[in-house]
């Protein structure tokens, strides 16, 4: 008996329901797409950064070097898998897995397109449509932090530990700003489901009415993915490789994979929340077919590539922030601004809901809010400058005390001289084994002592 709900091969009913098959197909396609996008993005990043730095970049493996990241992946897989002796073995194994799995999971609720037809069955291009999709993404990505934190701790070494601490502080701080920027979208769309938010952006993309939320999210997402200029957990110049210093082979590859998938996930989330999801951009959206069938996937991919390019652009342009600057930006700028903005959005929405709202009301409210905001900013800046000048006065006093301290034993410890500070010359102690010293570097001890002083 032919059954439309089950998969039938040549008249044989397999009793596998179609919804299950479609989910499996979509899941596998999503996984494959993410992995291919990762390979592509690594190549794309290297080429674009090379182009910005007037180099050539990888161009040997495959056309235009496109297969370079595949070759690198194979190379990584063939490398020796080293586990440091000091490492906490089970956690050391667990960390890369914990970092990679949430990255894949978060993508499940991102809508790629509207309803399409696969094998004659209508289905939306989205793996699952949770009613609280955005909250799910936040929850899953917060679990992804553990990968980095535990990698840093379990390596049993200093630099990874510092990287792990930095990343946990960083991600917690920026997750707050991120969540607050989403709240504005929830207020506008009236739903937390990703597909619902895309549907609510039929007329205008939310980046226009919610521009400040959008900007805050874009800053927070760079912090959340540990990318330059916020790549403090893996700052090469300070922490060797940060949390993944001790990782080799496929475990290292998993971290790499997680980082690039996170890049794609946060970009897709930005597109879904603020840039109309899979909807066609303005001139194209005049054509009625643009938002139907498989075309929206093209718009989505194009938007995604633009976002990835912006990420790379930031990395190619901006220097890394100092840790205190980074934290100050997160806590003293992004969070207060988004709180005030959220209040304003809530007021406007409420007025709109009760139907008491038109342009004549909107403009004075916005002007009043802007004036208040500028006042608060000025007050904070004045306070900050007072604080800085007070700090400088106390620092000057401390420096003066240090400069007068000619012995160089400030606070009981021998300290190096400050710039411009004169110290009494210290007569060098004669070497105990002069003959050895001569044979070692071909100088007489007297010569060496004088070299050292000049």
């Amino acid at each position, binding site marked *: 008996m032919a059954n439309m709900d089950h998969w039938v091969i040549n008249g044989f009913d397999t009793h596998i329901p179609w919804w299950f098959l479609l989910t499996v197909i979509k899941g596998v396609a999503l996984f494959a797409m993410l992995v291919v996008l990762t390979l592509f993005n690594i190549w794309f990043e290297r080429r674009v950064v090379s182009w910005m730095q007037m180099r050539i970049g990888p161009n040997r493996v495959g056309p235009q070097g496109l297969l370079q990241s595949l070759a690198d992946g194979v190379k990584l897989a063939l490398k020796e898998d080293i586990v440091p002796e000091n*490492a*906490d073995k089970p956690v050391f194994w667990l960390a890369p897995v914990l970092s990679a799995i949430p990255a894949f999971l978060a993508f499940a609720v991102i809508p790629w397109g509207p309803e399409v037809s696969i094998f004659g069955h209508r289905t939306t291009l989205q793996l699952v449509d*949770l009613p*609280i999709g955005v*909250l*799910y993404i936040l929850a899953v990505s*917060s679990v992804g932090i553990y990968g980095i*934190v535990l990698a840093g*701790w379990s390596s049993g070494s200093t630099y990874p530990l510092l990287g792990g601490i930095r990343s*946990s502080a960083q991600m917690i701080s920026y997750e707050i700003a991120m969540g607050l920027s989403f709240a504005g979208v929830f207020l506008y769309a009236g739903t937390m489901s990703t597909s619902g938010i895309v549907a609510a952006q039929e007329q205008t993309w939310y980046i226009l009415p919610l521009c400040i939320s959008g900007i805050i999210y874009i800053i927070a997402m760079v912090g959340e993915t540990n990318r330059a200029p916020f790549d403090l957990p893996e700052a090469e110049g300070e922490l060797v490789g940060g949390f993944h210093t001790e990782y080799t082979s496929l475990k290292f590859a998993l971290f790499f994979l997680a980082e690039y998938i996170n890049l794609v996930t946060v970009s897709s989330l930005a597109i879904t929340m603020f840039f109309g999801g899979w909807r066609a951009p303005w001139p194209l959206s005049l054509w009625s077919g643009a938002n139907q069938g498989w075309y929206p996937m093209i718009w989505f991919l194009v938007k995604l590539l633009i976002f990835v390019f912006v990420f790379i652009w930031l990395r190619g342009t901006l220097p890394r922030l100092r840790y205190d600057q980074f934290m100050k930006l997160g806590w003293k700028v992004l969070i207060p601004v988004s709180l005030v903005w959220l209040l304003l959005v809530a007021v406007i929405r409420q007025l709109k809901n009760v139907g008491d709202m038109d342009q004549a009301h909107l403009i004075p409210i916005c002007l009043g809010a802007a004036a208040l905001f500028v006042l608060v900013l000025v007050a904070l800046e004045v306070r900050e400058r007072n604080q800085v000048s007070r700090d400088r006065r106390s620092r000057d006093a401390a420096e003066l005390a240090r400069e007068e301290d000619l012995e160089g034993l400030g606070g009981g410890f021998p300290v190096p001289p400050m710039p411009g500070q004169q110290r009494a010359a210290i007569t060098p102690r004669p070497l105990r084994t002069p003959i050895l010293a001569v044979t070692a570097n071909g100088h007489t001890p007297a010569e060496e002592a004088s070299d050292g002083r000049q």
Partner: protein
Amino acid sequence: MSHGYLSPTGLEIAFVLIGLVTLGSGLLVVTVKNLVHAALWLLVCMGSIAVEYLLLTAELLAWIQVLIYAGAIIVLFLFGLMLTRAPIGPTEELNVRHRWPALIVGLGAAGTLVTVIVQAYQHTWFDPRGAVPLGSGEALGTQLFKYWVLPFEVLSVLLLAALVGAIVLSRRGRDTEEAEA
């Protein structure tokens, strides 16, 4: 439709099994000698409580549990541990002298809670399919901000007070130093 303890549904079996995971990981939190491992077992405990919420169709609550407890609070624990000390390997001085009183208090609290919940919901049967709309964000928001808004606001004021108190305590030493200088 008949209900009986002797013919459990798949949902009930899953619920009990995950409850056992929660209990086991909770015991491991207090018995494991390695601080970071204890925090990780707490993570397992919190995660399995979230799964229990999911099984009871409280979807919003489950993801909030993952977001707040698993995703933020235990990360903060780990952060604090790593800032102070988080040695690799067991820590020996973790033994508590008041172990037995603590155990008695813990068992007593658990016993009271179990009794109260059993007494309260003894004759209530839970229908998973009927309960799905109750666990949605909309239903929870209506409950919270319509009927329970006073306790909710009081709790938030309490949290705020705790936050301010923590800041005051941590800054007090510095301010007196500045005043003296």
